[in-house]
């Protein structure tokens, strides 16, 4: 759908703006854009089981929906969602009466996990913005573990040029990342 395509290319800030305007497509995109991120914090950061992570996921986006107006800096939606997710996960663990997982969750581990996820998320966005054929080349090689031969056959490119093309695309990805200046910290919300 044209509307979906248009929405998917919005910046985080513009997406939040459209959510505030009540666009259902924008809300769908917001959930889609951050769903992996929320699941990853629940699973990798807090070690929640799949069922608990699903419940936490629902709770996080319910809070996002009801509290979006409290977000001061629209560009800081990601750290704000991370903060909400951490709070929801801690609430769920405390409510379960099983405090054992909390003993295993150190601030350092949470910080490290969030940093890794932020980096991964930023790179995923940058990959999407690279355009073709770079997005496809890097996706096939690094994410799908395809061989040079398979890539060359699938994309109809000379086999001997794949490694060089990937190197050039990594250079473009580097430039794309260097050109970004995303918001830092989780201070976007008023609470």
């Amino acid at each position, binding site marked *: 759908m044209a509307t979906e395509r248009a929405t998917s290319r919005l910046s985080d800030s513009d997406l939040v703006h459209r959510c505030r305007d009540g666009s259902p497509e924008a809300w769908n995109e917001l959930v889609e854009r951050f769903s*992996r991120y929320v*699941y*990853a914090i629940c*699973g*990798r950061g807090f070690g929640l089981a799949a069922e608990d992570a699903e419940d936490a996921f629902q709770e996080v986006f319910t809070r996002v929906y009801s509290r979006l107006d409290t977000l001061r800096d629209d560009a800081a939606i990601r750290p704000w969602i991370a903060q909400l997710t951490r709070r929801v996960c801690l609430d769920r663990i405390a409510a379960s009466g099983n405090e054992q997982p909390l003993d295993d969750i150190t601030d350092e581990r949470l910080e490290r996990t969030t940093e*890794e*996820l*932020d*980096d*991964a*998320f*930023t*790179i*995923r966005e*940058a*990959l999407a913005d690279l355009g073709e054929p770079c997005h496809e080349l*890097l*996706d096939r*090689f*690094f*994410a799908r*573990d395809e*061989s*040079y*031969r*398979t890539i060359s056959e699938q994309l109809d490119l000379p086999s*001997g040029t794949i*490694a*060089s093309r*990937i*190197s*050039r695309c*990594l*250079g473009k*990805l*580097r430039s794309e*990342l*260097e050109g*970004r*200046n*995303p918001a*830092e910290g989780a201070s976007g919300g008023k609470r």
Partner: protein
Amino acid sequence: MVGQAALEEAPQLGTSIQTSYTCVAVADDYLELKLSEFLERSASEPTPGAGSAAAVAIALAASLVVKVARVSRDSWNDAAGVAAQAIELGSRCPTLARDDADAWQDALASLASPHGVDGADTELRRVLDRAADLPLAIAETGADVAGLALLTAERGAPSLRGEAVAAAVLAHAGVRIAAHLVVINLVTQAGDERSARAGRAEQAAGSAAAGALEGER
């Protein structure tokens, strides 16, 4: 700036790209072993066997490529990208080594069970199929490492050319082993496309190793 750490070292970009999709860390038993333990297990237990040994050889070759590429950054524009790719290819190897060992154990168990009973032959076919898929993946990974090794031997720092040549030869050895395993696993299935693919991988790795050695002379 977010992502700055990844920018410091292009090779990390590859890992980050993968993480950005999977967000899951793969546990690799063989990565946890000391080299002496791995060697002892290779000598005394059914697994790791030849397929795993091939994967480890290819991982070593990839490491050598990374070393040469890293040293060559000042004189070779693609060096960082090549290092990133070698890291990615090398990182596939421990999982392939472990999975190949699992598949080989399954194949041994299945071959030892009585055939002809309900489902046993179908199960044997499934197990042998997997036992062929994994060496093929190892062979194709090795062919790519050999190609990078040749590139590195040609464009990398001359002072470390010997390392790049060693990488090409080592990768070729791993590919030959893995390709052979594909063929003998498929001995009863003439015309299997995997045999042809394994042959192409072996040919590509052989050409890369020969090219690297030729340039040394």
